[in-house]
């Protein structure tokens, strides 16, 4: 397996910028809705485009860690809580995709997106519950809320993947994505 090069790091950083912009646009719209995962659901279709693109270009295990790890460091400046649940979700995603050896196939990337956004909802609920204390822990961890929200997050991630792959095709046609 070839070594990571400067261009890979730079590409990952620019995908992080895309994901960050997606969150800047979408998250404030839903800040006042106290449902676990609702922010992930609106964020995933747009962030998923960039996540898919980064996977398609970098391909190796650790691609998601590089993109989301940087995002976590960046968003930790707003709140440690965000940083913590992103790190949780990226560990789960990299763990699952490690068994598939990276993000080479479209299917790998679909799984990567679904797992990442679904687990972001779960880790977000856990970290959020831990930080907010008993009152919210009880509310957030109710299965009838958390399970559908997790499924929806995965679905939203799949939409992001689908749009991302469409753009990957266009980039390849224009000769702008040499893997």
């Amino acid at each position, binding site marked *: 397996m070839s070594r990571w090069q400067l261009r890979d790091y730079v590409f990952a950083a620019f995908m992080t910028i895309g994901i960050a912009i997606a969150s800047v646009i979408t998250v404030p719209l839903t800040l006042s809705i106290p449902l676990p995962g609702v922010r992930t659901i609106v964020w995933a279709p747009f962030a998923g485009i960039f996540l898919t693109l980064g996977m398609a270009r970098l391909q190796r295990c650790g691609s998601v860690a590089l993109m989301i790890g940087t995002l976590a460091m960046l968003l930790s400046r707003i709140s440690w809580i965000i940083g913590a649940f992103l790190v949780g979700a990226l560990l789960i995603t990299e763990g699952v995709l490690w068994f598939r050896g990276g993000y080479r196939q479209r299917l790998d990337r679909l799984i990567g997106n679904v797992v990442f956004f679904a687990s972001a909802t779960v880790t977000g609920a856990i970290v959020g519950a831990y930080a907010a204390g008993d009152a919210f822990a009880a509310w957030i961890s109710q299965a009838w809320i958390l399970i559908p929200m997790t499924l929806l997050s995965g679905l939203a991630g799949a939409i992001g993947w689908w749009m991302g792959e469409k753009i990957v095709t*266009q980039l390849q046609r*224009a*000769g702008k994505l*040499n893997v």
Partner: protein
Amino acid sequence: MAELTIENLSFTYAGQTQPALQDINLSVSSGELVLITGATGSGKSTLLNCIAGIAPTYTAGILSGDLCYQNQSILHWDIKARSRYLGFLLQNVETQIFTDRISDEIAFGLENLNLPPEQIPDLINAALSEFNLTQQQHWTIQQLSAGQKQRLVIACILAMKQPILLMDEPFAYLDRASASFLLDLLQSHAAQGQAIVLIEHRLDLVQSICTQSFCLHKGQWLTQTPKIQSVDRSSEVDHSTKPIVLQCRNLSWGGYPQFPDLTLRAGETTLLQGENGCGKTTLLKLISGLLRPTTGTIELLGKPQPRRIVEISRAIGFVLQNPNHQLFAESVLQEVQNDREILTQLNLEEQLERHPRSLSQGQKRRLTLGAVLARRPKVCLLDEITVGQDATSLNLMLELLKRFTQAGGAVIVTSYDPQVANALGAKILTL
């Protein structure tokens, strides 16, 4: 001894049969200032990329021939190794700035050279004073204009004191005053022994100071350079009887002094002239509705300018400076709403199936003009018509604009280049 020698250099892009560069020979000695000109797609940038090592590392292709620094072959060195001896100014200066303050930015390159920390402050101060940036040293990058950024990157590169400098259009965003400042500076650096190779379209500026000049044509050296065709003034028509399409009165915006009044009739062309930062682009944005004037009125086709940009856009088309913001379709033909005639006029008919994003910069610029005119506006605004354009490509654009005005359209262009006014037979409005 020659600092840089190029021997029989050829380069063919991956997937193409025609070489982009063919048997190029060049020798640059210390103290020389070499100018390379040529049409877009003639291979100028490819040549600089080959020298810097960007091709074939980042742009796939086959390179043959040899490249020497002080008679030592550097062909197998990577970009970073070459950057110890070669300073390279890229076309888009935004991509060579990495920190958020002027003095930190100069330090960045010196830190990469791993110089002893005690040397760095003196080198920074020297670079700041050479470029008159001492007072701005704590400014953030976001406070700088495009021209100031260009000046900063040049300062950063010169501070690294490499013996060879490669510059891709260093004058692109500079007004007359900053351009002559840079000309003096380049001359003095050459006099101190640096070897400088530059690509530039603004020949009027550079030709006076260069020691050698070469023109590339289809990847080979050529002896003559094409000129911008000027219009036969005798055929000019009197426009004063034509209807007024656009009228601006007492316009002002932000901190700019009030703009001069502007009246544009059907078939007329107006060139906005003025130094960097005098508000040429701002005036175009006011007319197109992207900005709302602080004072004054704009009348469009005899009625007050509509409030919504989308409504204004039915009558006014705007070709932005950077074509990459203005391409949306998946093929060249779609981009101009299947108007094959416009593509033929812009010499893009062979590209019609291609993805617009795969075109060269000059071709993209022509395509965005085509896309704007395909919407049949009454007025066409064009920001910095010469940027990224060689004479051939520029002539194609000027030709299409002339047809547009002959058919009753009106045009406002901005340019640093005084030749353009003549070529378009334009009225000049100085800001």
